[in-house]
């Protein structure tokens, strides 16, 4: 018998095998004779690990190796790993734990099965909260059953998520989700890759336009990430929509809008999401679509910070999560026929204007509009108020870039959202209107003054020439009046107080000797800030 082992042992078996002993913290290799007993093995181990033999528990293949066993008995061969646990003191609760563990393990198995069946029988038809878009993004959500049907799965997940708001919060806090959400390209890919989404896109090309606009996407993601912001926006939208309802004819417009726009999208979306993730898209249309169509605020402006109505709260909670894909979609939806009728209605709703202006996404939309003058041009031109007046259209088109720039001007924006400033402007316009109605002859060539105001301090040569050519004749003045009235009711994006706007020109005029500030102002308004034309007008109407 050849003995080549290093460990001394009483065994007669020659073969030495290498066995790895693995503890939770370390592992060591032992060379032992194949037929050594566990007891002998433990002796070696205790020496190496400096532990008492009593404390050693060897485990292999789930079995506890008893002292009297041998290695070969347990089929421990060369290269295998044996686990070692070093016992500490025994606990008295051991027996209690063991008896309860056996019963709990059986009951646990039973309860697991029952739970799985009950969850799977949960109806998949209950309408989800339109979380579809957002749900596709939160890939680390953890509720619901694993269903192969995507829409069912979405439904389930939404149900569970909504029933456990903490989970939702946790998902959103998950840095992975947040990082993913902050990457617009990724988001876009995700959204576009969904086949149902692709269907939607085909039917509504505006969506693809929205998707391609990184600014809008970014804003969308911001909103998705920031639930407070989303809520705020939803509130605005709901308020805007309810305002829209309250005006005469508004309801019809809403209905029309719904049938034209929302229903096809709803139908398309319902196949996918079982709900209408674009519900707030409609709101967005209402709010976003009135951007070109400024109107005078004839009523006292509502308090934009008033707590939302109860009705809007329920709808906002329902559509909170649907806001994720929707903001900024309005920008692409302007050119649909439903929108145009809506624009008409909106121009008569001053409250809507205020609400809309205070919406946080307005700025980004204006940004995108200014970057995309074609879209803005299209938007303006499709405005039904303009359709009857090609002249106005022309002017609008020309003034578009300038007016867009001015809308970017933060001063402008702050003035527009300042209810007092808006009211002041309104008063001026009202005054002008009254004047025009009462004494049309008093202010000749006053037509299109406000449209000229669109150009603001920028030059409006076309208007200047226009009005100067209309200088004579009562019929001409009638025309002016009509046009002015139209213009008054027409979009007037430049709502900055004319006094502020024309400060410089007013100074110029007063320096020249035109001391009648009121008349100066009116003339400037009429000519849109063109000092020369204003002078002409002043000289024509009243000798200075």
């Amino acid at each position, binding site marked *: 018998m050849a003995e080549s082992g290093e460990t001394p042992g009483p065994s007669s078996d020659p073969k030495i095998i290498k066995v790895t002993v693995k503890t939770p913290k370390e592992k060591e290799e032992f060379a032992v004779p194949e037929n050594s007993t566990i007891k002998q093995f433990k002796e070696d181990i205790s020496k190496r690990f400096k532990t008492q033999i009593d404390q050693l528990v060897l485990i292999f293949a*789930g079995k506890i190796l008893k002292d009297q066993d041998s290695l070969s008995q347990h089929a421990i061969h060369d290269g295998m790993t044996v686990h070692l646990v070093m016992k500490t003191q025994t606990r008295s609760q051991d027996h209690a734990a063991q008896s309860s563990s056996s019963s709990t*393990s059986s009951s646990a198995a039973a309860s697991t099965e029952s739970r799985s069946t009950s969850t799977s029988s949960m109806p998949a038809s209950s309408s989800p909260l339109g979380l579809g878009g957002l749900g596709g993004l939160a*890939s680390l959500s953890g509720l619901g059953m*694993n269903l192969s049907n995507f829409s069912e*799965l979405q439904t389930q997940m939404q149900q569970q998520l909504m029933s456990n708001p903490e*989970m939702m919060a946790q998902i959103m806090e998950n840095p992975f989700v947040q990082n993913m959400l902050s990457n617009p390209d990724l988001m876009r890919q995700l959204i576009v890759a969904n086949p149902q989404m692709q269907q939607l896109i085909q039917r509504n090309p505006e969506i693809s336009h929205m998707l391609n606009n990184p600014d809008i996407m970014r804003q969308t993601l911001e909103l998705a990430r920031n639930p407070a912001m989303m809520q705020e926006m939803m509130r605005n939208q709901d308020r805007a929509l309810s305002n829209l309802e309250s005006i005469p004819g508004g309801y019809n417009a809403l209905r029309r809008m719904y049938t034209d726009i929302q229903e096809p999208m709803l139908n398309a979306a319902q196949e996918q999401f079982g709900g209408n993730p674009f519900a707030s898209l409609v709101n967005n249309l209402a709010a976003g679509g009135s951007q070109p169509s400024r109107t005078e605020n004839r009523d006292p402006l509502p308090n934009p910070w008033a707590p939302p109505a109860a009705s809007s709260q329920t709808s906002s909670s329902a559509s909170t999560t649907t806001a994720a894909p929707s903001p900024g979609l309005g920008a692409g939806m302007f050119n649909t026929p439903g929108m145009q009728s809506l624009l008409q209605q909106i121009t008569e709703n001053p409250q809507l204007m205020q609400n809309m202006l205070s919406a946080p996404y307005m700025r980004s939309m204006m940004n995108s509009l200014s970057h995309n003058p074609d879209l803005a041009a299209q938007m303006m031109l499709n405005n039904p108020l303009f359709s009857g007046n090609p002249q106005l259209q022309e002017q609008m088109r020309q003034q578009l870039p300038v007016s867009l720039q001015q809308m970017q001007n933060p001063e402008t924006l702050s003035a527009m959202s300042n209810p007092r400033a808006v009211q002041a402007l309104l008063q001026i316009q009202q005054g002008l209107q009254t004047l025009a109605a009462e004494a049309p002859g008093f202010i000749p060539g006053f037509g299109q003054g406000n449209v000229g105001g669109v150009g603001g301090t920028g030059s409006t040569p076309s208007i200047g020439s226009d009005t100067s050519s209309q200088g004579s004749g009562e019929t001409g003045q009638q025309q002016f009046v009509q046009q002015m009235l139209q213009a008054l009711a027409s979009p007037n994006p430049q709502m900055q107080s004319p006094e502020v706007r024309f400060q410089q020109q007013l100074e110029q005029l007063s320096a020249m000797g035109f001391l009648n500030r009121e008349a100066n102002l009116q003339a400037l308004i009429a000519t849109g800030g063109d000092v020369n034309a204003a002078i002409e007008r002043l000289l024509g109407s009243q000798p200075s």
Partner: protein
Amino acid sequence: MDQSTVYPVKLYVYDMSKGMARQLSPIMLGKQLDGIWHTAIVVHGDEFFYGGEGISSCQPGGTVLGAPNTVVDLGTTEVTEEIFMDYLTSLGESTYRGDRYRLFEHNCNTFSNEVAQFLTGAKIPAYITDLPSEVLSTPFGQALRPILDSIHIQPPGGNHFNGHYGQR
């Protein structure tokens, strides 16, 4: 002759993405992944798993993930609860502390694999342990790796395992 009692050992497999991975992985990763697997070992009536906070235990199926997708029967073990607790405590003080968690290399499945081998000698199914390498072999996984590395998955619902249920 084996006279000691044996305890069944099960592996609970959860898909953390709840089916999303199956749907989205072809798009996002370019390869089909059937799930983002989280596993836990169920033995002695409790579920044990490893996460960003270390080893945790709870009632079987008691995390927020709910019921498992799959239950793999790993066999039986003779390891008593007492020994198992000692073992887990040692693990929890060394290799499986909370701060040792690594999403790709040293995660819940690593833990489950090790415990499974300790208890029964069997490993857990390969599709679970291969998941990190599968993900990392895609450009998407590589790109997101810095983000993912910082993620610690810890399904809520478990109690931090501190050995002997707090008696220590």
